[in-house]
């Protein structure tokens, strides 16, 4: 398949990448840009561990073609901390013990950030629904929800 040059904007940095049209955003982030925070858990949009933010909204990067992401702001977990300071959602996840094996953590944190920016003071039920597209097999979600609620109102 013929490759083409595309331009991506990730975490505020600009990249020129040569991709095949069928390459997913997840593949390009992980393999070309070496941003491996987004994970491939299932490759079919079910588990949510590949979640990144596109224009501030969570998307499954395994179901998003890299060419579709041109001209949009892409945000990955690597871009959350700034000037050596963790994002409040990252801090809350660490302090509340919301991280066990960590495989779903980047997706959970990004989903939480996008959700709380849109809904700064959610109910617990709303918080649970917001992360219901990301599978965690370790935590039972309890401490993730606690971390979300602790960050509410802080963003």
């Amino acid at each position, binding site marked *: 398949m013929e490759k083409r040059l595309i331009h991506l904007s990730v975490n505020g940095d600009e990249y020129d990448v040569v991709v095949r049209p069928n390459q997913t955003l997840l593949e390009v982030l*992980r393999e070309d840009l070496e*941003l*491996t*925070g*987004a*994970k*491939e*858990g*299932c*490759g*079919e949009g*079910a*588990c949510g*561990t590949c979640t990144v933010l596109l224009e501030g909204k969570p998307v499954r990067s395994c179901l998003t073609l890299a060419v579709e992401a041109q001209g949009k702001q892409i945000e*990955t*977990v*690597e871009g*959350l*901390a700034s000037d050596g300071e*963790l994002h409040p959602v*990252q801090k809350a*996840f*660490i*302090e*509340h*013990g919301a*991280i*066990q*094996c*960590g*495989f*779903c*953590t*980047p997706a959970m*944190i990004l989903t939480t950030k996008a959700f709380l920016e849109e809904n700064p003071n959610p109910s617990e039920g709303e918080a*649970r*629904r917001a*992360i*219901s*597209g*990301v*599978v*965690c*097999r*370790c*935590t*039972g*979600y*309890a*401490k*993730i*929800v606690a971390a979300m609620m602790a960050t509410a109102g802080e963003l």
Partner: protein
Amino acid sequence: MAEHTLVGHRVPRIDSLDKATGQARYTADLTLPRMLYGKVLRSPHAHARILNIDASKAERLRGVKAVVTGRDTAGVRWGVFRYTRDQQLLTGDKVRYIGEDVAAVAAEDEETAMEALELIEVDYEVLPAVFGPLEAMQEGAPQIHDHAENNINIHVPIEVGDVEKGFKKSYHVREDRFVDSEYTYCQTEPYAVLVNCDLSGNLEIWTPNASPHTKAKALSNLLEMPLTKVKVRRICTGGAFGGRSDIFPGEFIAALMALKAARPVKLVYTREESFTSVRQAHSMIVDLKTGVRKDGTLLANEIKVIMDGGAYSSTGPIATSVPFLVWEETYRLPNVRFNGYRVYTNKPVRGMYRCHGRAFLGGLGMQLDMIAEELGIDPVEMRLRNALRTGDTQATGSKIISCGLSEALQQAAEKSGWKEKRGKLPFGKGIGMGANGMMVGFPMGIRGGSSAMIKFNEDGGATLISGVVDTGSGNDSMVVQIAADVLGLKMEDVNLVSADSEITPLDQGAYSQAAAFVSANAAMAAAIDAREQILNIASDMLDATVEELGLRDGYVYMKERPERNIWMGKAIRKALMDDTPIMGRGSYMPKIDQTREWVSNPKGQQAGTFSFGAVVAEVEVDAETGQVRVSNVTGAHDCGFAINPMAVEGQLEGSVASGGVGATLLEEHYWDGGQMLNASMLEYKVPLSVDMPQITPIIVESMDPEGPFGAKEAGLWGSMNMFQAIGNAIYDAVGVWIKDFPITPDKVLAALEERNRD
């Protein structure tokens, strides 16, 4: 415990910063220069003889650097035990399940590797296959392995006391059959492996694993390489739950290809391959006969279980025994007969799972409630009457040195409002209880212990070198917390080197619930050893006795006169100048009967100690749809002592998801013969955030005399007792017993309809 600055406190885990920022590396995240990409050709047949494999076209494809088949393995077979060596990890003569590894390719990129797989020609002679254990045991069934008549892989017989006499003396006897279907670990991280080799014959392996030493030993045997040359490196593991323990074909195949191509090879499984071709959990058919006195005291148990083991042994002897052992680790069983059969079928391989034996333990815990009701005894009282206590000896001979089971039962009942709710909730709502005991470690020979070392930098910082393995539950952080506490340092002043088969000492791994008891004991001993050395040096410098000194915040100080102190770095430097550098050294081997063997000698001390737990689940059952929703869970776990209460709670909450909502209500595989129909996360349903109940975790601390600071284990609580609690709660809600796991809406509806017909 008042003195402790870290141990017993809620502290953030040391690994969470890397994980929260995307810096933590998992196997699939790694790349090496000149790395090749591997792909495996899998069997499309459940049972077939391989007549010929022609890989010549694949070998000639541009970009292909290595092709391996069973011919490259010299027929070497793997088994966890000497008597279970039944699996060629790259099969040679026969395939025994759909998805079995037949050949593999390493190429410059993944697309080329996939194209090459299409070019490998395999001639199969399809054989009759068998997909259920009862059918497989019948005369005339297709024989899957030449050595196993009637396809019986493992038979564990255990008999204690006089079972017939026990039944004769019983006031009430009940018999029930419970069954379940296959389910799976479904760790969020799919299986992956990366192998690097150099021209001196060193192999480096990265793969999600619960025991680098176990993997390294197996690979060294299979590849006939010295253990010193096989180096399994530390890497983050995205969950294990029992499913990353023994060796898998992937590691072996990637190693063969790396050696053949003399280049690094990465093999990353798809989610489908992770479902079909690594490990699953056993399905079971469980027959239970229980006899009790009028007051509910257990007098006799007869238990027969037939497990579908799939095509190979894996951890078969352990898997066949564990559910029974969990039962004898919970209650006093004076007369008991157990016959466990693990049977070969033409299905994927089954291993030990965190929620292993839901039909077995769910069945026993539900039958206990049935008997309690027939005798008019409250289920909590029924459990309290039979619960093991400190000083008791279990049926097969293990002494209980600490036991908080009764306290756990009482606390779970009290905090859940049991008395006000049981039998008193409106139709559709119910409450139920479950309980379990759990071995903390088990006999694993030289691999059953752990050792650790601590060295110091001249600035006062320390490095702990421990074989401890962390698959996500927080073991790394736990040993650092302990070492820092003992040495009076901050956690950030203690580096950890762990889980590397070359660099770190032998350890049993994140397996058998032993890390908090065994690995942490070794780390604690190393820290105490280093502390004594530091205090000895400092006692000269401060002109005080060792007993008068303490360590805190990086300083050695006199307990009575804290203003008299020296910086620890000073003592460390003096030790270096004196040619007596401070090197802490510690080890721990649990006090178990090393002659105990799963099949040939299942008696004697099974584990160093045992943990205990009780749970109360509240459910809402929709009688129109059959849907069960777990609304509240109150669980009390005797973990001995909570080194980090936040981490202990995390384990309890996680096991409500895996054992409760997942294993009890949702998770199962569907089949067409040997073809798995839902090898996908769209079709294999796991609990999501919205499915979870409110959870109230209660930590019970029995202060184990052997455990580090009294600790035992925290992971195997709800994952082993939630089945009982939910099954019993459903009965309390709508008056039907569902004896088939998972308890899906169709089964609830069918049971309600049957009851209404009667």
